[in-house]
């Protein structure tokens, strides 16, 4: 094992080795996470709705998603005749790859991150914007009116909600003085950001829900209106990739929220004496946030498109701006 590792390091060089091994690890994490989240979503939804949820395959039905995955892989990839073939095939890949890259800079614990770039946060938001492009590609290439409507909605929504999202994290950045994820976590050594910037955390979570197209902001794929939105025409593994990207996106969004507002890998205050590794704290916080997002999804009805935009432009952006100004003043005063 050690010899093989040495061989790999000699072959690729130390930096590249970490990236390659890290990416393989991330790929595994993303898959396992998606499998777990789909199962969790179904279980959470079921228990909210007085049902049991999957229970047949494996203990508590935890292997259900693997079986579903096998089914999706084995299905025929149908390419309808009227689509723009190149874009149609590219879109599922385009939505999935950026998600994968974003994981490179997520600090899972004090030492467990693939690359601790000094522009870490920027990388995540730069790549998460790709999401929109892929959805637009998929919706446009499908040559289906429902898909197109879904794609157009998605672009308008994501572009609008990116503004308050970025505004809300600016106050965190002012405090940490860095875009580096590990520095942001270290800046919360005394008190988590969520305790003294609750509004920013709330804005972030709302906008992140909208960014990931989750209910009550799941307007691009609004099932009751647009059949399945931008991925109406997709089947088999291509559909699965959209699905995978959605759940991986949720993980990223929650992981970023954990890093920015909930102290990353740090233990909660007063629980520091527990011998729990940082990775566990990090994952625990992340999955609790994801649970909250799911809880919201299965409780609320969907907003209408114009209401969603009004909510963003008339409430979220002014609020985020005001918040930024106030906290800029406070931070200036403290320093």
């Amino acid at each position: 094992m050690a010899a093989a590792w040495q061989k790999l390091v000699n072959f690729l060089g130390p930096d590249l080795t970490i990236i390659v091994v890290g990416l393989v690890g991330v790929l595994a994490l993303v898959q396992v996470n998606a499998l777990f989240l789909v199962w969790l979503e179904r279980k959470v939804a079921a228990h909210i709705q007085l049902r049991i949820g999957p229970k047949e395959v494996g203990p508590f039905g935890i292997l259900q998603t693997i079986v579903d995955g096998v089914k999706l892989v084995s299905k025929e990839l149908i390419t309808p005749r009227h689509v723009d073939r190149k874009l149609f095939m590219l879109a599922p890949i385009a939505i999935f790859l950026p998600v994968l890259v974003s994981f490179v800079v997520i600090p899972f614990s004090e030492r467990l991150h693939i690359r601790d770039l000094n522009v870490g946060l920027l990388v995540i938001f730069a790549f998460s914007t790709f999401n929109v492009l892929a959805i637009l590609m998929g919706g446009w290439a499908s040559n289906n009116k429902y898909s197109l409507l879904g794609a157009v909605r998605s672009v308008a929504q994501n572009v609008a909600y990116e503004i308050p999202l970025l505004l809300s994290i600016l106050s965190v950045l002012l405090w940490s003085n860095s875009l580096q994820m590990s520095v942001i976590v270290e800046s919360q050594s005394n008190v988590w950001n969520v305790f003294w910037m609750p509004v920013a955390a709330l804005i972030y979570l709302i906008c992140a829900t909208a960014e990931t197209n989750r209910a009550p902001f799941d307007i691009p794929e609004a099932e009751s209106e647009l059949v399945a939105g931008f991925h109406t025409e997709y089947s088999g593994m291509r559909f699965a990739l959209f699905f995978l990207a959605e759940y991986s996106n949720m993980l990223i969004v929650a992981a970023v929220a954990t890093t920015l507002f909930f102290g990353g890998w740090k233990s909660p205050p007063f629980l520091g004496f527990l011998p729990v590794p940082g990775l566990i704290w990090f994952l625990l916080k992340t999955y609790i946030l994801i649970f909250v997002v799911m809880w919201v999804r299965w409780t609320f009805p969907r907003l209408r498109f114009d209401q969603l935009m009004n909510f963003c432009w008339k409430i979220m952006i002014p609020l985020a701006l005001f918040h930024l100004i106030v906290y800029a003043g406070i931070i200036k005063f403290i320093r």
Partner: protein
Amino acid sequence: MTNQMLEPITEQTYYLNMGPQHPSTHGVLRLFLKLDGEYIVEADPIIGYGHRGHEKMAESHLYEQFLPNSSRMDYLSGLLFNHGYVAAVEKMAGIEVPPRAEYIRVICAELNRISSHLLWFGTYIMDLGGFTPFLYCFDDRENILDILDHVSGSRLTYSYCRFGGVAKDLDDEFISATRQFIERLRSRWDDYHNLVTKNVIFIHRAKDVGVINRELALRFGCTGPILRGAGVAYDIRKAEPYSVYPELDFEIPTGTAGDALDRYMVRLQEMEQSLRIVEQALDRLPDGPIKAAVPHKVRPPKGDYYFAVESARGALGFYIVSDGTSYPYRLKARVPSYGNLQVLTDVLPGTLVADTISILGSIDIVVPEVDR
């Protein structure tokens, strides 16, 4: 536009076929929409995909044989259709129904009305994107179906009424199960109101959406919760009392503006009123026979007859022409959803695609009933 020839597109509009296979058209309704972006310019509901020719079928069936057809027109309030048809024939043939049978009919019909409204409630919120209340409602509705299954032997398409009475008597188990259900549903109102009625997103989605005002509703012959939501307290149970409704104490809830929220509130209050009716009817349930002596084949005298009852969706009338034989010469069902659906052409233009779903849902159509 009804001939569906697409005119050359000169403006920035396009056509969208919503349905006949679409998650939210509740059956096989097709909405032919002309859209400008997401705004609807013209809307044309196209019906007939579920046409089975029930009215024509009646002409070749004995009066008794047509009974199962009646509940298959509207699969959600089959007992109310049953009741309407049976009462119409009884009026023709001059059959006296024993009081116990009338009470049983009213109890079962009101339970059916509640189950229909519960299903509407669930699917309407699902149309708006909230999935959870749907399953809560189905849990409650399941209870009603079990109760009705116990007495009538079927869960959806009942043939429980008979000319001159009902098929089977109520037993103690039915009565205690129904009383338990009344308790249970009353305890659920708080959940429903907290989950849905007070939800700010729901209010935004339903308030001032799809306004069908008094004038519009009357012009299109809308009945039921749509008309009452517009502020007209018209309910066949009060306006042209039939069966034992005059003896029972209940109110007709009405709205004011006629928007989707008013229709929602009207239906929710109607469920509570129906519970009251069931409760009173159970208390007063007289003893006696459940079926009058009726000849094997009903032969109503020559003439034409009309009888209306209040179905879950509005005024349901059966117009039957008899030529003196045991087959109806002509049977025409005036179904509430037909009029209620036509109003879409006036209400939809100017709204968003998302509102289409909300409005369609709030109107509560059952497509097989429209098509018949």
